[in-house]
């Protein structure tokens, strides 16, 4: 067991990184959950070639959803590597 001050420091550093990751993903979430749909009318003027979707509609029907799914897999990896970096991850 390391002495308690260095454990405290490690905990704090771990939490700082975790919080930064949280805010980053929260930002992406907010952008694709809300901000981008505020521009639906201009985006609808763009039509996706071949498929024929207006872009604004597409983002709400599929685009943002795909971002959310990918983001969650990426987040699980990133948070795990932070946990590993500080030795706080569970054994495999």
């Amino acid at each position: 067991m390391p002495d308690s001050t260095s454990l405290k420091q490690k905990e704090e550093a771990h939490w700082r990184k975790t919080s930064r990751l949280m805010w980053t993903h929260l930002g992406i979430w907010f952008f694709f959950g809300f901000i981008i749909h505020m521009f639906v009318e201009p985006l609808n003027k763009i039509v996706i070639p071949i498929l024929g979707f207006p872009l604004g509609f597409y983002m709400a029907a599929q685009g943002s959803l795909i971002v959310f799914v990918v983001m969650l897999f990426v987040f699980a990896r990133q948070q795990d590597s932070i946990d590993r970096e500080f030795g706080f991850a569970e054994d495999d």
Partner: protein
Amino acid sequence: MATEASTSSSDFIKNLGKMYGTYTGGFIAFILLLALLEQVGVPNKILGYFFVFFTLAVYAIIGVMTRTAQVSEYYVAGRRVPAFYNGMATGADWMSAASFVGMAGTLFLLGYDGLAWVLGWTGGFVLVSILIGPYLRKFGAYTVPDFLSFRYGGNFARFLGVIVLVACSFTYVTAQIYGTGLIASRFLGMQFELAVFAGLVGILLCAMLGGMRAVTWTQIAQYVVLIIAYLAPIVILSTMKYGIPIPELTYGRAIAEITAREQQMLATGLATAASLKPHIQPFINYSPLNFFAIIMCMMVGTASLPHILMRYFTTPSVREARQSVAWSLLFIFLLYFSAPAYAAFSKLEVYTNIIGRDLTAIRPWLFNWGELGLIQICGKNAATIDAVVAACKAIAGHPGVVRLQDFVINTDVIVLSTPEIAGLPYVISGLVAAGGLAAALSTADGLLLAIANALSHDIYYKMIDPNAPTMRRLTVARALLVVVAVVAAATAATKPADILAMVGWAFSLAMAGNFPALVMGVWWKRTTATGAVCGIIAGFGLCLFYLVVSRYFPGAGVKYFGMTSLLNPVTGAPVVDLVKTMALPNAMESFPTLAHPLANKVGWFNLNNIACGLLGTPLGFAVIYIVSLLGKEPSKEMQDYVDEIRKPRGRTVLEEKTT
């Protein structure tokens, strides 16, 4: 805290892939067998019963086989469910009758604005993963109120947690049981009450003997059925129409055709500007404020609903809890990104093959639904051609072809009728019915378990008899499960008027009641017990107040609380004339007068009451913050516990007696 895994159960985990693979293959073979039976002339009704009873029997067998006498198996499936499978179970837990049957219909009616629900019911999982779920897993709770009690000083916080949980879960489970009745009665011609009873038996057989463990393994089986059932008709339809079996890619062209047809209908007088709502035009059903408010409430509500959060208590590790959220969303995504395709294909069919057609040349698929009162033309049920012709003749100056304003469709029909629109054999329709039932039953199982567990674990074991032996705890848990299920089914059988709207309310209530306290409990060590308790009461209270007043006491809302009429999203004009309606003799009447002229039409800031969480949650956060700062810092011990929750490594904070 996980009990030592016996050899037989670790074999069980290892063989999951093989088992569910075989199961899926068996289910497909079963569909093909029924298709064969249909070809040799077995009547539709028999096929339908086969579908329903075969699938119900499979769920029941799984439920009975996975029975358990261990507390940790009963409450959290022994914390051994792998991320991938827990994701599938969560998918089934999440997708309700409303998602399966109603979502596509909502998109059909509302067009772009309906996508608020698609976004709202998916994006919330991001919040589950980054803010709450994995931390509660590390904490080691059996229920959400467990965490509130530990973090916020005992049974008062626990009791509040139970109130919030029951408030948002009970109406929700009632709606699911109602959904089973609806699907079985519409599809199979069963009597509604009988169908509700059959659903109840199905739910109990799955959940009662094995608790979370049994519900988990049946939900996975139910996910397989529901996703095959949802995708099969639309994939076939897409292949027939566009030659590509990926409807999510091809419906873009359908949307372009719909948009062109809308212009044409306006130009030829088949639609009036008032009756036509262009499919891709945003903010004509919801104002931008309400559109984004619904998204926010559904998302944050997702991250606050106890029956969802508790699914992540079952994974073997915190790491797998995070992966599991990602898998959950992937499995949910498969259905939600297909729903708009249903809406587009159906709309194209209606706009090209019904609207503008001579009354005598209407496509026959529609009469089955007209007979049930789900499709109306010219104000009458479209049961036969004669009925339609007679109804339209009665309208002065009717041109003899169906106009858009003549046509009314119940939203449930969209998914259910797609196999017939595509001219597919009945076996596909039966499959869709089985899928809808699976969606309703799996969600009902999860909700029922959430309620019964809160009552048995939080109220009975933690508050009434902390020394109760294991056997008695499990007996009480099962007895309460039966009681809650029967009460919910009895409520559903009365066909309560507001039941479907109440599902939406559940999200706002969960959001206002749980979200601030859960998030602050993990992310801000300084949060005090008093702060959290005040925050829950204030946030949940405000949300509930707004809902109840605007729905049931709108007269009082206007007179005493300064509520004003909601505004029409297109014209910006009030939807009701307050001065005139307030002068009516029944203006101050309240519950149970459901047909009040102001009900759901008044509020503050033009905010729909379904989004009341948007009022309650910020208040909850603010109250927790201020009251916490006013009080003394939480003990060093508590702050250390919070540190423990933040680190995946190590033992769970809460250690339950498991034997």
